[in-house]
């Protein structure tokens, strides 16, 4: 009997009051963005943001609570753009979106910085006794793909170093129930034959740095079969698939041909559209996916938005948190009912 858990891949929109306050405190230009050494006034705002987004998730009733990554001005490139061994270059497009981040140019050895660990530790203060913390990081392949290497010299050495760096970050994390590694690049710009094995190996290394359940979440595109096959060698607990924007037939074919992990994550709520789904519809989609994968029964099914939700206005983002929680409730009730009937 699968346990349906409502969660999100993090990277939330800032509350509107914080958008205004931080604009005023930090400014609008490239050099005004977060560098990891922000002063007390800015830190205070982010503390309040963190408290608010944790409270939102608790109120919605999500099964995992994320820190929300309000500080991640550069989206998934954040762990590098605040790093001492990185210089930030020009503003570059974030995948196919009308969003931009600073190009992190890695110019020296990457060592663990503790930046994300500090955020997570701060978030734990806002959790209740029964809340389960979920950490979020870019996967190593994605982070390397978003960055420019000006130090390691070849693609493999760089990916290897990014993997090592992320593993070091995870080791400093406070206790967490789940770790989501976001890997959009793994499907939008899949590793080639030379990097396939290493891409999977670096994910395995990051996953090895925690006892928590590790989910490799992909979005915007479906897996290429070869890259997927290699990913199956990584010791992670679940792979996440985008059932909103990606080619679902192609993803299901990978799953049915090559199998998947004991848990699964389903991107079922649109993180890039303000149309708010009905919880019943989302619950039906959970069933639908389950029906499409007859050979496997999952221990845990994570129900998530397909992408980060910073693309959305705050009201719709919050509405979708509630939908996820309600959908998981309905799906769990359905599962229980089926069990009883059986």
């Amino acid at each position, binding site marked *: 009997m699968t346990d349906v858990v409502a969660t999100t891949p993090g990277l939330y*929109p*800032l509350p*509107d009051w914080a*958008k205004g306050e*931080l*604009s005023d405190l*930090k*400014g*609008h*230009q*490239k050099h*005004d*963005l977060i560098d990891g050494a922000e002063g007390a006034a800015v830190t205070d705002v982010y503390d309040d943001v963190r408290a608010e987004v944790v409270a939102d998730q608790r109120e919605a009733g999500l099964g995992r609570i994320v820190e929300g990554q309000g500080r991640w*001005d550069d989206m998934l490139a954040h762990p590098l753009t605040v790093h001492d061994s990185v210089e930030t270059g020009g*503003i570059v*497009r974030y995948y*196919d979106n*009308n*969003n*931009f*981040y600073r190009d992190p140019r890695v110019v020296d050895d990457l060592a663990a910085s503790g930046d994300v660990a500090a955020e997570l530790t701060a978030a734990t203060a806002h959790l209740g006794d029964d809340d389960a913390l979920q950490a979020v990081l870019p996967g190593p392949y994605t982070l390397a793909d978003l960055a420019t290497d000006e130090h390691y010299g070849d693609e493999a050495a760089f990916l290897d170093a990014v993997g090592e760096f992320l593993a070091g970050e995870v080791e400093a994390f406070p206790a967490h129930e789940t770790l989501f590694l976001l890997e959009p690049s793994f499907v939008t710009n899949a590793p080639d034959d030379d990097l396939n094995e290493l891409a999977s190996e670096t994910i395995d290394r990051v996953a090895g740095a925690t006892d928590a359940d590790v989910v490799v979440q992909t979005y915007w595109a479906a897996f290429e079969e070869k890259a997927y096959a290699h990913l199956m060698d990584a010791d992670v607990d679940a792979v996440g698939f985008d059932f909103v924007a990606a080619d679902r037939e192609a993803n299901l074919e990978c799953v049915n041909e090559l199998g998947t992990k004991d848990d699964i994550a389903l991107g079922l709520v649109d993180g*890039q*559209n*303000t*149309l708010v789904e009905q919880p019943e519809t989302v619950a039906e989609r959970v069933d639908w996916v389950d029906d499409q994968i007859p050979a496997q029964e999952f221990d845990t099914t994570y129900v998530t938005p397909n992408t980060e939700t*910073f*693309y*959305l*206005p*705050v*009201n*719709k983002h919050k509405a979708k948190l509630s939908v996820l929680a309600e959908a998981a409730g309905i799906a769990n009730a359905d599962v229980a009912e089926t069990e009883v009937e059986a």
Partner: protein
Amino acid sequence: MSRNPGNREQFRPEGHETDHFLLTTVVGSYPKPKWLNRARDRFEDDDHQFGDAEWAEATDDACRVITHEHERAGLDTVVDGEMRREEMVEFFAERIDGYEFNGPVKVWGHNYFDKPSVVEDVAYDEPWLVDEFAFVDDVATRPVKVPITGPYTLANWAFNESYPDDEALAYDLADLVNEEIEKLVEAGARYIQIDEPALATTPDDHAIVGECLERIVADIPDEVRIGLHVCYGDYSRVYPEINDYPIDEFDVELCNDDYEQIETFADGEFAPDLALGVVDAHVAEVESVEEIKANIEQGLKVVPPEKLTVSPDCGLKLLPREAAYGKMENLVQAAREVEQELDAGTIDVPAVGDVAPADD
């Protein structure tokens, strides 16, 4: 098939001193006077006595000032610097039935945009720009150009809750843009520019933009000049396809990367007129006349002078106002000097020289 680029002659000023005529224009937006921004703050502050009438007077004043500023720079066709508009999608979404606003979303860093949602079929209500045009046309002694955000961008830079896909939404919006242009033409407008920056972000959709343009120009008379502005992208992904667009003029930003992409268009087949960006819209330093003349000559690699329009790369609104004015003034001066040199035959026109001899 490009439309009727010959319609540019109507913009040649009376008594123009040279035989050659390079049409000078701008893309549209211009820095707002500081006092207009202060007026807006008061207008939006509920505690202030600054009401609708005061705000209308302030925007009218700004339109007058900036239109005259364009005329003073010597441009052949002018705009009001989009003084009544804040953001290129929001402005139109506020006027089109079917859109709603839910709050700001991030573009990058702490730069946000009130990205609207399309929640039902879009429909035409009140005219969007006819009053704005009539006002500027009344103020101006030069022909007025009207920039309109294109349907593909209005679709693509919104959340689509209602249509099966963005393509269907874009086509419905194109029909509304057509309706608006009909009204503008009725009011006397002869120069329309469709702004489609979203095409640069998703160039594979060039056929959708082409179909939108077909809808936009349906039943619009040939003497109305239709331009298309696309900026900050890889033009090789939309060229030569744009040769089939029903437009008179294709307006590009190439100064920004120092004409690295000019060769893309220099195949001797470029169909519409070329409106070439000859000053950078994001560098505050004003280019010298000599520098701009060299930039104009880049355009002659693509089209002969009678098909060349010169303009800034993009809207100038992010520049300090003095820099924006300086760029326009030097742009005009450079164009006039190039015209004289063309008359004198001292400038090469590679676009003509390279044309293969016709078969006898």
